[in-house]
């Protein structure tokens, strides 16, 4: 932990050069060059942070290594030498912060507990009161099944599902979407940090950042036809979501390349990684390519060949939505 605190940005960028390539080598080199020179311009940066030793000798994620991994990612994304400086670029004291995790898949393929703990630790160091942080998902039972302990009230970090808070009474509508939003989002979060997992999805192709917002509404079942397109993009256009979304930290410690969204251990792999970005579209595109590479490695067809390529990602980037970049030429992938 202290080591991570003391690392400078240049130190970990240097370290990353010797790390195993998470993505294709040429793209990573280019991205690093862009990041170091500060010439990314209009590009969206996606930080791909990886630690082969994240699990140590066992199967559980080492919490200190996770904290170090989060720090490396955040420092790279915000170009800061110290973790707290990076987090202060994201949040300000007095703000309330919602961490939207993903717990649908149960303990095997839900947002990692150590990752969430690391985020909470750094948020508090950045000046956010513990009770102003709420870890949430659609359902409290699913949170508990994923290993989270519910916490409602008091000075602790809060943790509960929308089943405890309820939904707004008025519909929020944009394009094809008309839904009731979680009161945790609308009433307990000035700031939204999206903490999804990296998964294959039988209907949508992949479920990463954008689709994780399905867990913020009362009627996600209505938005699965046509590979969730344009529903995912339209949902993320709701001002209540778009106006709060500041960061996505995608948990790819354990990821799934097939058989999602329910947990299929036989189709999971330990990617020991995080994807971090302020652009959820760029992050989704990057995560999608990670899944495609793993599928190819396993001899599986592409998602397009299975007629379930995540077309909603391109919709989210189109002129009507402009939620981010899906063009690889406009995405800088920084490996750390």
């Amino acid at each position: 932990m202290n080591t991570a605190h003391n690392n400078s940005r240049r130190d970990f960028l240097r370290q990353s050069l010797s790390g195993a390539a998470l993505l294709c080598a040429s793209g990573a080199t280019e991205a690093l060059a862009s990041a170091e020179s500060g010439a990314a311009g209009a590009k969206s940066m996606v930080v791909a942070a990886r630690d082969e030793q994240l699990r140590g000798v066992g199967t559980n994620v080492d919490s200190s290594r996770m904290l170090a991994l989060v720090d490396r990612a955040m420092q790279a994304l915000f170009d800061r030498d110290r973790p707290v400086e990076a987090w202060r670029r994201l949040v300000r004291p007095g703000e309330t912060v919602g961490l939207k995790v993903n717990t649908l898949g149960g303990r095997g393929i839900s947002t990692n507990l150590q990752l969430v703990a690391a985020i909470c630790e750094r948020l508090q160091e950045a000046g956010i009161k513990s009770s102003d942080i709420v870890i949430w998902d659609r359902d409290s039972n699913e949170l508990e099944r994923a290993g989270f302990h519910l916490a409602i009230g008091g000075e602790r970090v809060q943790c509960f599902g929308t089943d405890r808070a309820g939904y707004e009474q008025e519909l929020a509508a944009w394009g094809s979407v008309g839904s009731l939003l979680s009161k945790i989002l609308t009433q307990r979060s000035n700031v939204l940090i999206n903490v999804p997992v990296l998964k294959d999805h039988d209907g949508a192709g992949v479920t990463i950042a954008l689709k994780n917002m399905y867990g913020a509404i009362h009627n996600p079942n209505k938005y699965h036809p046509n590979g969730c397109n344009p529903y995912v993009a339209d949902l993320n256009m709701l001002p209540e979501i778009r106006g709060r979304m500041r960061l996505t930290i995608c948990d790819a410690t354990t990821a799934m390349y097939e058989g999602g969204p329910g947990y299929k251990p036989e189709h999971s792999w330990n990617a020991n990684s995080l994807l971090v970005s302020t652009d959820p579209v760029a992050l989704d595109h990057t995560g999608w390519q990670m899944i495609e590479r793993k599928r190819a490695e396993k001899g599986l067809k592409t998602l397009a060949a299975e007629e379930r390529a995540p077309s909603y990602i391109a919709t989210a980037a189109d002129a009507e939505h402009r939620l981010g970049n899906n063009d690889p030429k406009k995405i800088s992938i920084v490996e750390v």
Partner: protein
Amino acid sequence: MCALASGAALGITGVAQPAAASPSGAASGSEDDARYIVEAKFYQKLPNRKIKCKLCPRECAVGDKERGYCGVRENRGGTYYSLVHSRVCAAHVDPVEKKPLFHYLPGTNAFSLATAGCNVNCKFCQNWDISQSRPEEVPAHYTPPQRVAELARQYDCPTIAYTYSEPAVFAEFLMDAADAGHAAGIRSIVVSNGYIQEDALKEAYGRMDAVKIDLKSFTESYYSKVVTGQLKPVLDSLITLRKLGKWTEIVYLVLPTLNDSDAEFRGLAQWVKANLGADVPLHFTQFHPEYLLKNLPITPVPTLERAKAIADAEGLHFVYIGNVPGHPSQNTYCPKCRKMLVERVGFTASEMLIRKNCCPFCQQPIPGVWHV
């Protein structure tokens, strides 16, 4: 379309819960969800713990831990479950005219109930707060089939009506409740969008004594854009119901600019006459802005009258105008002598002159089920 807004709200409804009317044996919401869960009918298992739902034409392919479009049927480890058996979120005693069924036991009340869920997403739905919600999001009470039959009898209702949301999605509960009702001498009626596969229709609605189908438009484009469904399967359902000999009435909600052209009214009337016969009641009802279509105005009464005139001219015998209290076209007239046979004020049949299923003036048989 069957409004929740009026009618005697019972204790088991999530809309109004006067404690004094709370039926014994009814328990609240989520304290024991296992009571509501039964293995679904009408699905097939697929590899990799997926299933394909065969209840409605949508045929959702549902992965493990996911739900179908209706939101009330869930895949758990490769087995598909209904989450809404006996999970009643709305219950009222309504006049049967409110369904509306005008030719089925007029002047009687129907014990009307719903669970959460629907297999389409009409942008004008007036009950969207239950139809477009998942069951855990709506207050509900455990009301098993036997209790439904008891309540119908307690409230002096000759029928149980499955309504408000889309009854097809709670088919397992509907079938069990209909069986319990029949065993107690209580009939069953269903208010449905007709978006259901033939096998499921035969098994579920085959138990019904009368059916009202919401035919929401006569174009596929409207079904695609406004309903999120398809027209053809609904027309197929109407034909199947005809073959089954079920008493069926049709409601067509008229939305200004969206489904109110002369050509559409004419095409609809011609299809009904050719495929179902001239005696099927057809209700043109007035739209009120709701849900995602609050930008449209209320349907002008002249539009409804135009629709009726077209359908009359095409030879349909019983064309009604609905949701317009006091309009003379809410009444039933003899198709032969044109005398008024049933007068309706609001949802009440204030005068009923039909005797032995015939017009008392000219003895013309009047199709329907007029007496208990």
